[in-house]
């Protein structure tokens, strides 16, 4: 493909369960239905709900040879603003003056620009009423995809609609209707920014920054074997930051069965005291909600993390 032919490069960041893979598929299909060649893919490891994940979409008028992670995104969509301060989430990797950042947040755009020294344009995802309501969280991906489609520009509204029929149709009529209304509302709400995403030009082979390769030094196995000598290393990783939903035990209903929730917890984040009373370690609970599903008397409730934090602060 010639360097004058544009590739849209769009990255979605969120937490496992927020629908970023779905968002990338909705946007990818919408571009495809608009006559583009596309590539979309999620990137994840061994994580579960709540872990930082990302997905990406490339779209161009001719076949795409690029592959893998997008290094210089034209548009970065962030479904969860708690990811911004986490370096490992890589939300801001490769952004520059031409990058648009679309962010779901309660904090004002100007304040974010200041906090993270964002070099490009920052746009807040329109509030469509879903963020505080746990069932509504499931549709955040559709909202992100709808907004991204309008910011990118060349995706027609009916192509977005057809895409959602294809991607969300198999989930049933109710889910389809919810996805459609949120995506299209976000698409419409972004009208004033329509087409603001500008595809970056390809890297020049004439004028590039040469990679600084190193010769790996030979090191003894005592250093170079993949071993972790410390104990309790996972305790140092505060995976409680991953939560979008928080399990809360209602001790009035808890039967003190002493074993169900603590056994099913995949992270050992529920301890039971000598009286058989379970307690949740919120520093490490990732918010997977397995305990909520398993508790026989339904004594554990899922509440939004944002809501509980606001309550704790007041």
């Amino acid at each position: 493909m010639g360097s004058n032919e544009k590739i849209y490069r769009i990255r979605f960041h969120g937490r496992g369960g927020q629908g970023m893979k779905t968002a990338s598929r909705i946007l990818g299909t919408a571009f495809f239905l608009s006559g583009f060649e596309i590539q979309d893919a999620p990137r994840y490891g061994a994580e579960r709900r709540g872990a930082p994940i990302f997905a990406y979409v490339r779209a161009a008028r001719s076949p795409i040879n690029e592959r893998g992670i997008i290094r210089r995104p034209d548009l970065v969509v962030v479904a969860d603003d708690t990811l911004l301060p986490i370096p490992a989430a890589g939300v801001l990797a490769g952004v520059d003056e031409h990058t648009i950042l679309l962010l779901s947040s309660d904090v004002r755009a100007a304040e974010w620009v200041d906090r993270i020294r964002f070099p490009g344009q920052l746009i807040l995802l329109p509030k469509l009423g879903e963020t505080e309501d746990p069932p509504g969280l499931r549709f955040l991906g559709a909202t992100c995809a709808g907004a991204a489609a309008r910011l990118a520009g060349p995706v027609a509204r009916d192509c977005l609609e057809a895409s959602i029929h294809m991607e969300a149709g198999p989930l049933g009529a109710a889910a389809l209707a919810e996805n459609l209304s949120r995506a299209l509302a976000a698409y419409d709400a972004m009208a004033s920014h329509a087409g603001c995403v500008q595809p970056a030009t390809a890297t020049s082979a004439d004028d590039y920054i040469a990679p600084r390769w190193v010769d790996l030094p030979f090191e003894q196995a005592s250093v170079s074997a993949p071993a972790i000598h410390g104990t309790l290393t996972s305790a140092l990783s505060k995976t409680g930051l991953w939560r979008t939903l928080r399990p809360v035990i209602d001790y009035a209903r808890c039967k003190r069965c002493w074993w169900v929730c603590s056994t099913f917890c995949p992270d050992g984040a529920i301890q039971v005291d000598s009286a058989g009373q379970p307690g949740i370690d919120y520093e490490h609970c990732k918010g997977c909600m397995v305990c909520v599903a398993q508790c026989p008397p339904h004594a554990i409730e899922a509440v939004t993390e944002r809501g509980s934090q606001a309550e704790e602060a007041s």
Partner: protein
Amino acid sequence: MTQRILLTGNGAAAWGARLARSDYIPAFPITPQTEIIESIAAWVEQGEMDARLVTLESEHSMVTAAGAAAATGVRVFSATSSQGLLYAMEMLYTVAGWRAPFVLVNVSRGLSAPITLEPDHNDILAARDSGFLQLHCATCQEVLDSVLLAFRLAEDRRIRLPVIVNLDGFYLSFTREPVNLPDLGSVDSFLPPFDPENIRFRASAPISQAVAVLGGSPYSYFRYETHLAALHGLGVYDEIACDFARTFGRRHPAVESYRMDDAQWAFVMIGSFATKAREAVDRLREIGWRIGLIRPRLLRPFPVSTLRHLCSGLRGAAVIDQNLSIGFGGVLHGELCAALYGETKAPRTLVSFIGGLGGRDISDEEFFEMAAVVRRAADAGQTPAPRLLYTEDELRELRTLQAVAHSERNDLGARSKTT
């Protein structure tokens, strides 16, 4: 009617098995392959695919079941990845020796230890000498097409060997691209039902397959006949690929040569990262480089004469291996050197690069720099030592991780003594 739809590499592999009208699918899940057998299981369950899918208790049993079913004369498809392929290794060699044809998809993933989910080619290359023929894909379209090509190749009466179709985890397995989905009628005409000739298994007419031999002489005969069948695969593959192009309009030669007509320089590599090399070739050509890409799709049998032809007259090439033969280096580099040794017009400079291990990305800039290294080496008449694509920044990050792994030993050790 051909449809053009979006499919992941895994989805494309599953569609290949479905369009080929596979009869029997022994299965065992492993990331990043599982989506293939999940797709097929759903189709079988919904009655959209007339096949028997059986979950086995391991990949060892799965490949045994695949070979045994193929030996009864039905069309067999299976899929695995990485550790799964290695767990089946004993049976890979065994069923290839049975001369019972079937198609196995491998979704490449780096081998343990340390364990990872992302791709490189050490898993598939561990099966290099097993007797399975190997097709390596660079796009999702190629995955679907290669499954169809692989059945024709495997079942050809001159070959009768199992074939592995390889695709890279993540970069193809979970990546959606537009794929032409051929109609069943065209597939049926390209790939008629499997004619197993004399490998039919009937209760009334027992035969013994895979018999024991004592003494090197019969053993040598059977092993070398398998080798000759594999070598025969070069010509047979070309015929099949021509037939495929006539039927579907897509060309999949044994070796992709991209912009090689007037080339003085080349990238040589296999797998999906080769599309990144295509992109680099375009960029370098814009500034006057006469450079191209050589990508073997067929790795077993190794297309020696085509590679000799394509490399003839080149000034130099960068051979990029997404694998590492521990204690040797890049496998493709070694094989290409062997293929070109003694050729009068072979390039003097073949520089070995190791890149993309465990899914480590290769950037545009790195492709440009590899080309520059090759040119400098050719000008100087001195080939540099093999180069691992690894930057100062990566080493610095690794040092941070090592510091954590080691300092915690001290910190936490001290803490636990005091508590």
